[in-house]
């Protein structure tokens, strides 16, 4: 009798299309597992994008990603920019995947906090292989009123790399930085705007002032990134991939001996003097170099945030 009652309580059959009944669960536990599988299956199905949803729709995707962007960063959607030199494959355009970039240049205040938490990067402790003797030199001098909010300078590539790592970020690559830097105030591609290159060159031709602006008092570009030009030179992750060849110089024979495969690189836009200056500066850098006008900001992969969302 008890068995019969249980069988009634837990439905054991389901109708098939031909009218026959299919045994689904004969016992309480079998019914439980079937139900659990059904619930889990439906949850998985609901988490999948429905057919036809415009997942590849860049606008929709960017909106979703924008909701997740950290407060101190901005999202740069995928795109391309015209590099100074023609690429190895002859292309005059470089595609850049979307990524997050710090809104502002890293400040003295932020870098102080980092060195307090990581004493090995303090000027007194840093190993000489990671920074030259001028490292954080301005910290030892009398400070202007806005010093804390000014870009940190006299900072080496190794120190900048360590700072970004400590924030869960990384330095932007050369292409990522140039892509962000090619934007004007109103367009992701400033080079198409009359006078854009000239304005950059005017900024670059000003002598480096001793008193840098606070990072928030710098020009904002199309992406919402501040101070990409006219403030300081910025470090990139692959600074040592700048192989400027001596194709028109007397030392080209030496260059051929120094580098394997450094073919002649023609300039896409010989009038882009500002880009020439940036490339020349990066070519002169070493990992331990520090300069009065050399600082950085950090970047992050979009995947880095998406993976944080995973349980």
């Amino acid at each position: 009798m008890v068995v019969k009652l249980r069988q009634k309580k837990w439905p054991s059959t389901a109708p098939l299309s031909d009218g026959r009944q299919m045994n689904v669960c004969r016992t309480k536990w079998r019914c439980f597992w079937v139900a659990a599988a059904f619930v889990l299956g439906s949850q998985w199905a609901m988490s999948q994008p429905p057919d036809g949803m415009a997942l590849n729709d860049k606008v929709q995707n960017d909106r979703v990603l924008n909701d997740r962007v950290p407060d101190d960063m901005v999202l740069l959607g995928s795109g391309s920019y015209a590099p100074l030199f023609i690429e190895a494959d002859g292309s005059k355009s470089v595609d850049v995947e979307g990524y997050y970039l710090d809104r502002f240049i890293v400040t003295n205040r932020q870098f102080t906090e980092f060195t307090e938490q990581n004493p090995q990067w303090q000027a007194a402790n840093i190993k000489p292989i990671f920074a030259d003797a001028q490292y954080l030199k301005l910290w030892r001098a009398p400070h202007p009123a806005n010093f804390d909010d000014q870009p940190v300078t006299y900072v080496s590539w190794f120190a900048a790399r360590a700072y970004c790592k400590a924030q869960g970020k990384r330095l932007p690559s050369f292409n990522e930085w140039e892509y962000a830097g090619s934007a004007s105030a109103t367009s992701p591609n400033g080079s198409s705007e009359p006078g854009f290159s000239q304005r950059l060159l005017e900024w670059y031709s000003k002598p480096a002032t001793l008193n840098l602006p606070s990072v928030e008092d710098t020009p904002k570009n199309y992406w919402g990134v501040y101070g990409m030009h006219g403030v300081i030179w910025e470090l990139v992750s692959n600074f040592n991939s700048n192989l400027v060849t001596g194709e028109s110089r007397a030392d080209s024979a030496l260059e051929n001996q120094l580098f394997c495969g450094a073919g002649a690189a023609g300039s896409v836009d010989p009038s882009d003097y500002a880009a020439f200056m940036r490339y020349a500066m990066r070519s002169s850098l070493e990992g331990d170099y520090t300069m009065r006008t050399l600082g950085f900001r950090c970047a992050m992969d979009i995947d880095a945030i998406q993976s944080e969302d995973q349980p």
Partner: protein
Amino acid sequence: MKIIAILLLTVISGLKISGLMMASFMMTSIAQAQDLPDNSIYHFESSWLNQASETVVLADLAGHIQLVAFVYSYCEHTCPTIIATIKQVNKMLSPEAREQLRITLVSLDPDRDTPERLKIYMDKQSLDEQQWSFLHGDADDVQALSALFGVRYKPMGVADIAHSNMLTILDQQGVMRYQMKGLGENLETITAEIETLAGESP
């Protein structure tokens, strides 16, 4: 149920043992690094695999004179010339200096140059594993190590990497003592540097 419990215990104890082994390995490396001079390259904390897939930290290279070059196994242009140049340097050394010299090749192509691939390359080039070894690391560490050596490189298309042709001599504690920039140099200088370092060793 018992089987599951035994399996779980086995996995947990395995993890603990490997954790302890890793901790002691790291402690040894840190202790080694602390004894090094401040300007030793070996202070750069990073983890590598050699051609036998064994984990290597830079401090493990201490104790020998090191000749370091950055190459990649798919390179068809100057990398074979770099290897040939190193072989020639090695041949020019006195037996005492050669005994103290180790040759470390750092791969600039971590995606394709797996330890297995590097082992095959070494066999093909007849490189004696007692003296020669390859380092395979992640792209970020390769970038940083190349920056420490002043080596520049850039992927060119899908297959080639343009890179500095440079041979570096590190002393027994990882301090950079000499760099031969370019392959057209006279090999007398680099061999003399190695002989001097070998003569300095206690």
